[in-house]
């Protein structure tokens, strides 16, 4: 049973550039999917159609059969509250406390007046602390977000997404700003939590080894097209070379050097 369904999704930006050329995919519940491809291949675009931050010019994305693409206003916000997202640059409110950043994950769900006044129910605050516990930084709740290291900030990002109690997790190059050991630690956390909660997770990554290590399924993109879709075992070096259009270097990092 498909959890996320892409039906012939095409994205044309205002500039006229076609960033996604008809993607049709079915992603089952709980799958850990890694998307690989050169810079500009359309990975971020694909991921952002899932929560409608990018609006497809054709086709449809649905979660549990409900169209995210066609949803508007309150309905769209409700669908988004079920989809967590973490970012390469973490996107925290730097001057706010860690706890407040995590509580922001409740903003799609809290009562209207409460959200405006800045009051969160006790259960939300407890949940936020719980999320920080799960990403391993419970003691950081009351410090300012910008005093944390990169790895810790990304954990706050994950905690914020977890506070949504989402069924889908999107991660757009979540470890591109982190060093390799921290990257692995963050990806391990992400994978463990996805397992425990049965969260369908879609991650953009640049490193072949990481993609193979964590992915249940790898999707390769090139010039707005899905050019590979298979298991980690099927994604051989030859497959990666075809996706990236060039040989694998010794660092096994296929980030586009543009």
């Amino acid at each position, binding site marked *: 049973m498909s959890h996320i369904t892409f039906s012939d999704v095409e994205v044309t930006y205002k500039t006229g550039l076609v960033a996604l050329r008809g993607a049709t995919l079915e992603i089952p519940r709980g799958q850990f999917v890694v998307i690989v491809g050169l810079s500009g291949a359309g990975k971020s675009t694909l991921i952002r159609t899932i*929560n409608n*931050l990018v609006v497809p010019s054709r086709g449809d994305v649905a979660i549990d059969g409900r169209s995210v693409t066609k949803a508007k206003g309150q309905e*769209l*916000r*409700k*669908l*988004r*509250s079920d*989809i967590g*997202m973490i*970012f390469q*640059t*973490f*996107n*925290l*409110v*730097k*001057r*706010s406390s860690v706890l*407040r950043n995590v509580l*922001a*994950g409740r*903003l*799609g*769900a809290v009562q209207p007046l409460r*959200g*405006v006044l*800045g009051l969160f129910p006790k259960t939300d605050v407890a949940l936020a602390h719980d999320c920080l516990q799960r990403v391993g930084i419970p003691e950081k709740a009351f410090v300012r977000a910008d005093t944390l290291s990169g790895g810790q900030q990304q954990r706050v*990002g994950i905690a*914020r997404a977890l506070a*949504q109690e989402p069924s889908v997790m*999107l991660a757009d190059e979540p470890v591109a700003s982190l060093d390799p050991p921290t990257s692995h630690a963050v990806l391990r956390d992400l994978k463990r939590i996805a397992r425990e909660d049965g969260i369908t997770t879609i991650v953009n990554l640049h490193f072949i080894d990481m993609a193979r290590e964590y992915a249940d399924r790898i999707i390769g993109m090139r010039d707005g097209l899905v050019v590979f879709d298979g298991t980690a075992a099927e994604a051989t070096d030859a497959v990666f070379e075809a996706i990236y259009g060039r040989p694998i270097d010794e660092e096994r990092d296929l980030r586009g050097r543009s």
Partner: protein
Amino acid sequence: MAVPDPATAHATPLKPGFAARLLNWSTWAVIAALFVVSVQQTGFGFDGLAEGAVDFARFFRRLAPDWTALPQIWAPLIETLQIAYLATIFGTLLGLPLIFLASNNTTVNTPVMVVARSILTVLRSIPDLLYAAILAPILAPGPLPGVVALTIFTMAVLAKLTSETVESVDPGPLEALKAVGAGRHRMIMYGVLPQISATLTSYVLYIFEINVRASVVIGLVGAGGIGNLLNRYLSFFDYGGLGALIIVVFFVVLAIDSLSVWARSRLI
């Protein structure tokens, strides 16, 4: 809600050599021409100034403060401060929503943004003294027109100071909040306000300083407060009272400015 592209959000800096090209001979010629025309048309002359100086010296000697006027001064002085205080609060409360509507990252849609920007442009272009002069007869002279005039003035100055502040906030947190499913108000509350609060507080204190001074002056055109008393002393040739008033106002304004400057220096 559009999140600005960080690559294009910043204005292009001035090209080097711009100042040099601006200050070529033709610019100097225009400045000189305007100077000559202005001197002739205003009748500005140093003999006039000299006469004025003599008058001023005579006037100044009579300004020896009459401290028995003090009890008369306090009530309108406090009224002046209250006018400035209320106007600062009302102006901020009314101005902020307008500023958010006028900023491309927090507006509702483009037509609303254009309307909000137009309103702010109009507000900004009218001097505060003019608001007070127009409003005083309409709203019955007294503190009310003063509050209304300075409220509008506060909105205008705040808009001028903060429009860029709102548009230049880090768009990352806003995108994250949007992804969470937060609506516009929550994005402003949790994404924008924490980023601008220090700057905003500093601007509001600064505007309060300006409002204290402005509320002294607008009293002259009938908008209540100490300016009213100032007007009375002037028209009854009560120079002793005038002297006391000027000294009191000087020290009160100085105290408020210093306090505000101190508070602002601690904010950023």
